[in-house]
């Protein structure tokens, strides 16, 4: 089984990555999951300054999901470079650093501080959290408008060397996610991470007030999965050449395969890590079994299958004579290596 997959020039040993914010600083998750065996470890969003976040309660349980309004807590870029990144580098994890900002220039500043640090070489990729609220636009998230999203992408892309992949993580709370994706592609992203949480509200049945101090929060978990699959499918249709890390409530290998079929080249596991921090190894094993059961020899063969006609067989799969491999014809898979 060929589990390797590519996000632009970045090769991952397998397609299962942790989602931003769901693996903590790495230390928490590492007690249960070997970070070096993840396709990649995506950090919590790093902001310019240390932030305490919002007061509690900032997480609420909802049906098959969690609703969170954390307020982007974190040590800030200095704390991250001083303590978290060196630790992650030591664990030999492929680190994708999620960057956030209150303004376009802040995104650029965080990215610049990151690439200027002595440990810049250990950064495998940068993911832009464009769902951050823009304080210069009354708290509207950058991901809500094609122009704001592309401005942020340009600021980060401009600061990061060409050989380091830059991904944008998009929000589903938009009229047409493909338009935002297109704007990000034009601004130079290597790929996209789909999707961030979706805005929701939980009401305390006792007090009849919102549960979260942030009033509304971001919905994650399996409740979000159909929305995430739709977004991946829609964006892959519009931009078949743009690599996607798909995720939203991935809890099993079958879920992961659904995301590959919708057009993702890798799959992120998020809320599931809070519920079952040892899940990535299981999900990868289940994915491998699910691919094998369908006669698919490579992760890349599954990517985008949902867009092909029914009964489509990837060119390298031989059904009648399994012992003999036919040399690969010209590759029809856009995101295959």
């Amino acid at each position: 089984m060929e589990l390797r997959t590519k996000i632009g020039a970045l090769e991952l040993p397998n397609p299962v990555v942790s989602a931003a914010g769901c693996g903590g600083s790495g230390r928490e998750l590492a007690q249960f999951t070997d970070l070096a065996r993840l396709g990649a470890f995506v950090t919590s969003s790093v902001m310019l300054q240390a932030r305490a976040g919002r007061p509690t309660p900032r997480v609420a349980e909802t049906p098959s999901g969690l609703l969170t309004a954390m307020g982007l807590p974190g040590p800030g870029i200095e704390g991250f470079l001083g303590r978290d990144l060196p630790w992650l580098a030591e664990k030999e994890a492929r680190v994708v650093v999620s960057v956030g900002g209150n303004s376009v220039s802040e995104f650029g500043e965080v990215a610049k501080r990151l690439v200027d640090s002595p440990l810049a070489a250990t950064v495998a990729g940068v993911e832009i959290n464009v769902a951050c609220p823009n304080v210069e636009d009354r708290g509207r998230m950058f991901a809500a408008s094609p122009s704001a999203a592309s401005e942020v992408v340009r600021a980060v892309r401009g600061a990061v060397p060409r050989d380091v992949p830059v991904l944008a993580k998009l929000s589903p709370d938009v009229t047409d996610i493909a338009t935002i994706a297109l704007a990000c592609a034009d601004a130079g992203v290597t790929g996209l991470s789909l999707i961030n949480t979706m805005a929701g509200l939980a009401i305390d049945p006792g007090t009849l007030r919102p549960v979260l101090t942030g009033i509304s929060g971001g919905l994650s978990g399996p409740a979000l999965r159909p929305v995430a699959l739709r977004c991946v499918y829609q964006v892959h249709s519009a931009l078949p050449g743009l690599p996607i890390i798909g995720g939203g409530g991935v809890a099993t290998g079958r879920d992961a395969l659904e995301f590959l079929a919708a057009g993702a080249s890798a799959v992120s596991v998020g809320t599931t890590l809070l519920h079952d921090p040892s899940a990535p190894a299981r999900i990868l094993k289940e994915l491998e079994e699910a691919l094998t059961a369908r006669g698919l020899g490579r992760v890349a063969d599954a990517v985008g299958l949902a867009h092909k006609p029914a009964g489509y067989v990837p060119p390298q799969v031989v059904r009648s004579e399994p012992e003999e491999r036919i040399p690969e014809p010209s590759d029809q898979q856009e995101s295959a290596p």
Partner: protein
Amino acid sequence: MQSPGTVLTVRQVAAYHAMTLVAPAVAERFRPGQFLAIAVGGEHTSLLARRCFPIYEVKSDYGGTVELVFEATDPGTNWLASRRSRDAVDVIGPLGRPFPLPRDPASCLLVGGAQGASGLFSLADALRRRDCQTHFVLAAPHGAQIFGARSAQRIGDSATVITRDGSLGTAGSVPDLLPRIIDESRADVIYAAGPTALMSAVSSVAAAHGIPCQVSVAELLASTSACGIGTCQSCVLPVIGDDGITRMARACTEGPVLRGERVRWSDLGTIPLDAMGGPRAPSSAITAP
């Protein structure tokens, strides 16, 4: 650390459920004050937040068992209460900072509120092995909510039961009655576990008497946590560090046992303005480790 536990028994104890799990990996490493994070609802659950429970006691039977005492208040804890012998439960533990033990024999006052008191009995055993005196104070609004009165009377050097309505023991409140109990027991140190308001009250009485106080914020943890392992950062509370800087500490990881006088009780549910990463934090705090 994450392991399948097998249910041995679930029984009703006063107003609570007591569950015994066969979980050798937990029993082996447990220290008093630590807790378990349990996944509820089975394999295809729609309840994604782990439930955190203080550990009542561990035993060496069946390779190692763990007992916890909880109240069934929501679908998750109801599911747990409906488990039967030989059912599998996904547990992570033991987790969190345990109660620190005194180096030399001391007179210890153990204050427990409602089922939160369950976390104090293994502590009492450990203290007694160190030749410490253990004086119990068990408090709850009503007599039916008192947990462990008989055990406390059996193993403690003294045991005081306080209920608000006087349905069991002395009628009154802990803050009113505690000063006299501190004097009578000549307490050198106070340990407390239970409702957050009680932890706050005990901390301020201890501070007024100049007695060190270790409190378990397991109730706050149970009501706010989602993962139990420090990842989700949902169970934070403002705690003053050794350097004098307030940080939002995770009840699951930096706690659940905290020094009572270090918790900013009146600021719970807020981010204090001067907390690290807060709106008016001193700039030097941002770079502090």
